[in-house]
């Protein structure tokens, strides 16, 4: 569906996107992840036919985004960041206008407008002026607009930006229901979001791809360490013994409570030491009431990748 090869975009000497190459298959939901200014929006703008790349090429459904811009735009439903809309129009009127621009006519136009308003839950506000709507409604009107011409590819730039948790869940469910008909490329800051919705994650930083994999593999292959929490009963402090286990980097004693001691073990990412902890406990005769592993989240990956690149300066 999307084929990007050596895509580069420069603005007045600054390279926003640097020789990016990736592919997206039909029917996939792919998450675009990266800090602000990483080049996510630029890539999406190029793919939606808004502006051409400086060099390299991008194809959507077999059409070059620059040479066959109109064809591409007919196949892509694009929702820009911040969901820009005409504030003086009413919701239904706006969607009618957009549908007409995108080539829908007559009965199909009216039917489809009703359908997307229903899908994005904006039917109740269809007569209201867009400028007076809340952020959540505006966002959904923009999403309805992106969907209206039944595009093969949906490109959504931060679709959940500025929404409350209930609305975010609503959007997530909507996206899942859309995967039957559309290929979706979305960008977001909310890592949890990506883990829940996407088949694949493309992480980009300073215009370059840092990682491209399924969310699960990405967290697994992570350099970031995972944590193992263990709570056991013993007469003495056993931190030393736990630290001696292979793969453990550091042991933190979190609390003690009537003979129960809780420890947090920082372990290397690829190792699972739960069994050896249990074996050790059995051998020493400790009683265990909690033992679980906390996997690194995409957030950890994100922070780590960003930090590694900027020389580990958190606010540099």
């Amino acid at each position, binding site marked *: 569906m999307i084929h990007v090869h050596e895509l580069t975009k420069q603005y007045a000497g600054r390279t926003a996107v640097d020789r990016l190459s990736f592919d997206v298959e039909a029917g996939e939901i792919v998450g675009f992840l990266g800090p602000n200014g990483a080049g996510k929006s630029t890539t999406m703008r190029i793919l939606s036919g808004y502006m051409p790349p400086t060099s390299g090429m991008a194809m959507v459904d077999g059409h070059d985004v620059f040479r066959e811009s109109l*064809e591409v735009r007919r196949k892509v439903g694009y929702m820009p960041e911040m969901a820009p809309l005409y504030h003086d129009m009413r919701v239904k009127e706006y969607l009618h*206008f957009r549908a007409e621009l995108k080539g829908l006519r007559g009965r199909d136009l009216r039917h489809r407008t009703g359908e997307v308003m229903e899908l994005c839950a904006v039917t109740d506000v269809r007569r209201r002026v867009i400028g007076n709507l809340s952020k959540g409604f505006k966002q959904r009107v923009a999403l309805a607009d992106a969907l209206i011409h039944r595009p093969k590819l949906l490109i959504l730039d931060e679709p959940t930006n500025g929404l409350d948790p209930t609305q975010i869940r609503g959007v997530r469910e909507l996206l899942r229901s859309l995967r039957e008909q559309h290929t979706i490329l979305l960008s977001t800051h909310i890592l949890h979001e990506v883990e829940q919705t996407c088949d694949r994650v493309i992480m980009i930083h300073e215009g370059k791809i840092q990682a491209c994999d399924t969310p699960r593999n990405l967290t697994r292959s992570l350099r970031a360490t995972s944590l193992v929490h263990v709570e056991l009963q013993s007469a003495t402090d056993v931190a030393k013994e736990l630290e001696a286990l292979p793969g453990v980097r550091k042991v933190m004693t979190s609390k003690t409570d009537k003979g129960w001691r809780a420890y947090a073990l920082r372990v290397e990412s690829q190792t699972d030491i739960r069994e050896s902890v249990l074996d050790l406990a059995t051998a020493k005769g400790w009683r265990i009431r909690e033992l679980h592993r906390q996997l690194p989240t995409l957030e950890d990956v994100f922070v780590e990748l960003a930090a590694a690149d900027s020389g580990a300066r958190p606010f540099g």
Partner: protein
Amino acid sequence: MCLWNWRRRTPGQGHLDNETMRVFWTLLKKELRAFFVSPVAYIVLALVMVLGGVSFKAALSVLESAPSEGSIVTWTFHAQWFWLSYFFVFPLLTMRLFAEEKKLGTLETLFTAPVRAWQVVGAKFTAAMVLYAVIWLPSLGNFWLLDWITGGKVEIPVGALRGSYLILFAMGVFNLAMGCFASSLTSNQIVAAVISFTMSVLHFLLGVFALVVGRRLPESMVEAVHYVASVEHIRLFTQGLIDTRPLIYYASLTLLFLTLTHQVVEFRRWKL
């Protein structure tokens, strides 16, 4: 450099001629609607009607006080009041066109729909032109009213009237194109209005200056001076003298500014 790539048609777009006009029409409807739901159209209409009435009254006083060469039409379009309304119309009508879309970010949604830049520029310009034509219509009523009240005793030269409205339209279209261009340069409507106003006034003053200097110039250059002098065009046309040279002058400048606007709007598609 792929500046000219937008001209290149891809195969399979031949059937689009119908579709192209439909898109244009959709955009035009939206632009016209935007004028009439905002107070701008009504403010401009009121302004032009009031000042039109005042300049008509001024013309009547001139004719009342002493016998004079010009007709009621000539004097109406030479009142200062007329020029006052004339210069304020263009910034008010055009400042919103591109600046607002830039500010809201809707140019991005607009240009990711299957829409060509010339359709957008054309639709916005045409909407402004339609509105401009509409706002001058009520001023025709003044002449009709005079004719009706006096029972046809005051002679209203029809040729002069035709000429006046023709040149008013031609000059207006040119100034609107300049306004479109000004609006495409910035995302601030006030800045757009100031640029548009300045360009209109400068063009007018250039004409006046050329006329003044032109008297001292050799005969061969006088004609060139007359090309840019709006005052001179108005003087001739309000006498009923319809000259095609100024019409072509304004039409070409209109095209020039619309092309410039198109280039500015398409700037993002330049490969730099």
